[in-house]
């Protein structure tokens, strides 16, 4: 136990009401010790299995503890990570992936191909892109302790893109004993055994409050420079502490006073204060941005009518909606593509529906659709400001085009539950809700789960069913060249706008606030290798 006279006086005097302490103006704020990065993450980490759960916070946790066979760099090219390389047979049916030397689990046992095979299989059951990949896979086996052999039934163009995907659910490699668990049998605090650049500190884990990672001194980074999730994961910190702050104002104050070093997502309304604070910098490290999305229930009236969905899409004005939801134009931009603007597959096919909004045209389209005043239930999230604003704006627009809107206010947890209902709206069903995705989850027709047309057989909630869309997605997955992929991606977009299973509401960015003695932050999701704290 250590106590300084000043600390004792300050505490005791204040407890007895004597707050005026001459000479005690020296900062008593607890600055982080050297080598420890104190981070305010965007959410609390309560579930721990990054393969079984899709939350971004769990994905970020996954990148701390585990590693991947392949990973995407800043240009989104897939690069070997745990793998030293891959050999693809001439007929493109066999992939031989070799593990690089020096890989070890945190208990110092060697990483082998026998661990990686069940890891891939488990991920293939949980992830949409993984499930699609495994429909092409004939077998995944080992050839000695270092080689994983994937045999396909027929050629598939996205094998490495799938197992090297950047965002949820990421195919992290885990020790066999954990990888063999069922997906529903989620990993817990005792199972956080990876081969990643940080080790999990179970003793200091306080669910919902604090997570501590320590540098994995035995981690052997790649020799290439770090780039997004690929390259050398060199750790320059002893510890990284994620401290959850339920109150954004307190989080801001802690950053300004130097009690934390890194505030992952600074809310838009606090940016002016953070930007002016001495010793604090603000920057956007997520060039792919986030995309807002309204999702329709395609099973129940009136949104089972594509004409109604298109009319609503025509009524939404991205500029207005983003102004309402985000506010500062520096942090949003309109995007009339189903793919993030600025990425490979951005295109303009069918985009007039989104880029040229018009209430008059929307009213005419609504009349032509046969809409007859049926109630439309909008699940209006109240506890996530961006989603709340999107829902409120949309409810107003729908009223203005003559729809009978029932905007039901509820927290996000209730939305998540309500949206699984396939009942008609008068029996607890729903027609529409809003959410948002990181750009990395929407990059192409296959990775973007919202573009699935599998209906009740595997599409996202809303159960979008469209055979044509699925045919195009399959063609994309099996295509051989980028030019061919681009052409198909444009057709997918045109079909997606025609069907309008979802509304794309534009892009926005949530910048990171950090102390100016922190450097080396990557243009990537919040990864903590490469970061230095002086």
């Amino acid at each position, binding site marked *: 136990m250590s106590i300084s006279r000043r*600390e004792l006086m300050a505490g005791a005097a204040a407890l007895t009401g004597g707050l005026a302490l001459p000479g005690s103006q020296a900062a008593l704020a607890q600055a982080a010790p050297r080598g420890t990065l104190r981070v305010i993450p965007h959410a609390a980490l309560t579930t721990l299995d990054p393969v079984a759960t899709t939350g971004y916070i769990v994905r970020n946790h996954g990148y701390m503890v585990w590693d991947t066979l392949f990973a995407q760099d800043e240009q989104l090219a897939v690069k070997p990570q745990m793998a030293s390389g891959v050999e693809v047979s001439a007929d493109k049916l066999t992939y031989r992936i070799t593990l690089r030397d020096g890989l070890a689990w945190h208990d110092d046992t060697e990483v082998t191909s026998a661990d990686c095979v069940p890891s891939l299989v488990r991920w293939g059951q949980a992830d949409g892109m993984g499930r699609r990949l495994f429909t092409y896979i004939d077998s995944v086996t080992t050839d000695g302790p270092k080689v994983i052999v994937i045999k396909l039934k027929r050629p598939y163009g996205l094998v490495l893109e799938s197992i090297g995907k950047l965002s949820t659910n990421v195919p992290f490699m885990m020790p066999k004993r954990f990888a063999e668990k069922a997906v529903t049998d989620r990993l817990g605090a005792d199972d956080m055994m990876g081969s990643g650049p940080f080790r999990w500190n179970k003793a200091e884990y306080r669910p919902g409050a604090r997570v501590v990672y320590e540098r994995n001194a035995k981690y052997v980074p790649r020799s290439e420079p770090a780039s997004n999730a690929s390259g050398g994961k060199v750790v320059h910190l002893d510890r990284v502490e994620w401290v959850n702050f339920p109150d954004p104002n*307190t989080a801001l104050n802690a950053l300004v006073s130097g009690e934390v070093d890194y505030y992952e997502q600074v809310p838009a309304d606090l940016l002016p204060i953070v930007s002016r604070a001495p010793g604090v910098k603000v920057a956007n490290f997520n060039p792919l941005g986030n995309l807002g999305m309204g999702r329709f229930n395609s099973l129940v009236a009136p949104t089972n009518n594509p004409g109604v969905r298109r009319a609503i899409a025509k009524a939404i004005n991205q500029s207005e909606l983003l102004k309402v939801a985000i506010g500062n134009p520096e942090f949003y931009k309109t995007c009339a593509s189903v793919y993030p603007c600025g990425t490979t597959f951005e295109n303009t096919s069918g985009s007039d529906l989104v880029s040229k909004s018009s209430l008059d045209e929307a009213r005419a389209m609504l009349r032509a659709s046969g809409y007859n005043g049926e109630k439309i239930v909008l699940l209006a999230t109240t506890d996530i400001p961006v989603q709340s604003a999107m829902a409120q704006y949309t409810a107003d627009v729908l009223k203005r085009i003559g729809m009978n809107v029932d905007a039901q206010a509820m927290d996000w*947890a209730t939305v998540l*539950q309500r949206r699984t209902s396939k009942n008609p709206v008068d029996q607890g069903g729903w027609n529409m809700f809003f959410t948002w995705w990181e750009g990395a989850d929407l990059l192409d027709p296959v990775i973007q789960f919202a573009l699935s047309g599998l209906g009740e057989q595997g*599409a996202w909630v809303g159960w979008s069913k469209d055979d044509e869309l699925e045919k195009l997605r399959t063609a994309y997955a099996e295509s051989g060249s980028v030019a061919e992929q681009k052409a198909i991606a444009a057709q997918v977009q045109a079909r997606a706008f025609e069907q309008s299973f979802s509304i794309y509401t534009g892009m926005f960015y949530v910048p990171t606030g950090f102390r100016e003695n922190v450097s080396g932050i990557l243009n990537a999701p919040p990864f903590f290798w490469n970061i230095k704290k002086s």
Partner: protein
Amino acid sequence: MLRLIATRVLSTIPVMGVVALIVFFMLRLSGDPAAILAGDTASSEQVEKIRVSLGLTKPLYEQFFGWVVQLLRFDLGTSLFTGLPVTTLIAQRIEPTAMLALTTIIFSVCVAVPMGVLAAWKSGGWIDRLVMVICVLGFSVPVFVMGYFLIFNFAITLRWFPVQGYTSPFVDFGRFLTQITLPTITLSFIYVALIARITRASVIEVLGEDYIRTARAKGQIEAKVLFRHALKNAAVPIVTVIGLGVALLIGGVVVTESVYNIPGLGRLVVDAITRRDYPIIQGLILFFALIYIVLNLIIDIIYTLVDPRIRY
């Protein structure tokens, strides 16, 4: 006295039973956590699989009796999200809340009782009016406003105290004091107002009694009259309000813990409610109910100590 304690302990059982019943069924009305666990991109089938794996598809009566059997083994269950036992989570979080409650009560009593006695002694004078102004402010200013006011002035501007956080006094007492000071003052404000007003009213009533006049006639000094004769005889309502205050603190800490980022029970229960983590919510509400019952018992016992006329 022993009969009182025995009766109260026995009466705890049906009370806890009713609380358990209400909590269990009310929570089920609010929906289940499977969709939250599955995440944003989960399909309905995945959500259903999780629901089955959590036992949420079993009939409600079966789930309820399963939980009761667990309780009889003193097992509050396991968090659906973290996979950790609820008792472990409570053990991790109880210290910050208990410490905040303790410092708040000590600070409130030490400040409010003398304030109330002074106000009563100088009833109608400027001291009385000043105390009443403080009390009105204490009742009127929301806890979070007071928290932000103190943080801005004493943590951000003057930098006397840290903005947030909690350190155990058993780890670093100095740091504990600096971190707990502002939350304590924030949370105490309303209790100071409450206790000071009750103290003032009780002491004013007692100061009109014959035995006070007699004490003064005997030439006793005013401080002795006030604190030995008047305060002691005015103690019952003061003890009652202090006891109620401790019980109310359980609710009050939620906001203070959020404003000062203290990882206590208040935040645990709010987070659990947001996620529909049934075992944590059920366990904590039962735990809080037990605290209320124990506090009431302690207050009843204290009555007999401060007023020998009270017998059970």
